[in-house]
């Protein structure tokens, strides 16, 4: 029952979903940055900020990308097992910080990179365990 074979087409879909996933977070962050003139200190100022962000084209670009990723991801999962797809798709855990450094000029210390790698390893183990669980119940 396991669909494990990663064809070139699926690999391209996975890479596309990685890049789009990163784009979602980039767009949302850009949307928040564009309205940085509002300082959020309490509930009313938070609502003013949110209203401004929801009229930002970046936010809607992000939401549109969410829909695109959902469609691509559904296609991927209809062709391949989750435990195979997630580790390849987790590339965005590296891609988002890289994009943050290059395009948003954020700084990442060595300790934080280590934390990111630990999270990535954890995500891969969790997704591999879904295969193990199904194999056990067989």
């Amino acid at each position, binding site marked *: 029952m396991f669909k494990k074979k990663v064809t070139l087409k699926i690999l391209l879909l996975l890479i596309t979903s990685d890049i789009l996933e990163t784009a979602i977070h980039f767009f949302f962050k850009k949307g*928040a940055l564009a309205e940085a003139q509002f300082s959020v200190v309490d509930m009313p100022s*938070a609502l003013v900020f949110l209203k401004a962000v929801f009229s930002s084209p970046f936010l809607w670009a992000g939401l549109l990308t969410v829909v695109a990723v959902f469609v691509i991801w559904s296609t991927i999962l209809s062709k391949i097992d989750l435990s195979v797809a997630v580790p390849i798709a987790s590339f965005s855990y590296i891609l988002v910080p890289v994009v943050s450094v290059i395009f948003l000029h954020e700084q990442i210390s060595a300790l934080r990179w280590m934390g*990111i790698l*630990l999270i990535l390893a954890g995500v891969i183990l969790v997704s591999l*365990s879904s295969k193990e*669980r199904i194999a056990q119940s067989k």
Partner: protein
Amino acid sequence: MREGLLVTLFMISLTSLCDTINQLFLKSAIDSLNFGGKFNFVRIFKFIFQLLIKPRIWLSFVFSVISLCIWLLVLSRADLNFAFSADSMHYIFIALASRFILKERFTSLRWLGTGLIVTGIVFVSLS
């Protein structure tokens, strides 16, 4: 700075919690349809229609909107690389919810993975 970090982490855990509730409603709505077997376009449309008339789907939608709003507030005060990494704490909530609410069985590999994610988040937050 230290207090700011705690507030940010608290807000990130709120989004993660909303995401988890959203996933639970989604899972419960989909499970209640007993949808299995072959997929084709007619069945997929029927599936989506049946899903859309479930109140739980709309609850799930409400929680994802709340989650998005809090996420945008997080992004207004935190670096993207930090927020994105710390947001993986939804893995912890999902693990707890799957184990104790959905009563799913867990393997040691899954606990190990969840533990690594927790350690990673601590590292990311300390730096």
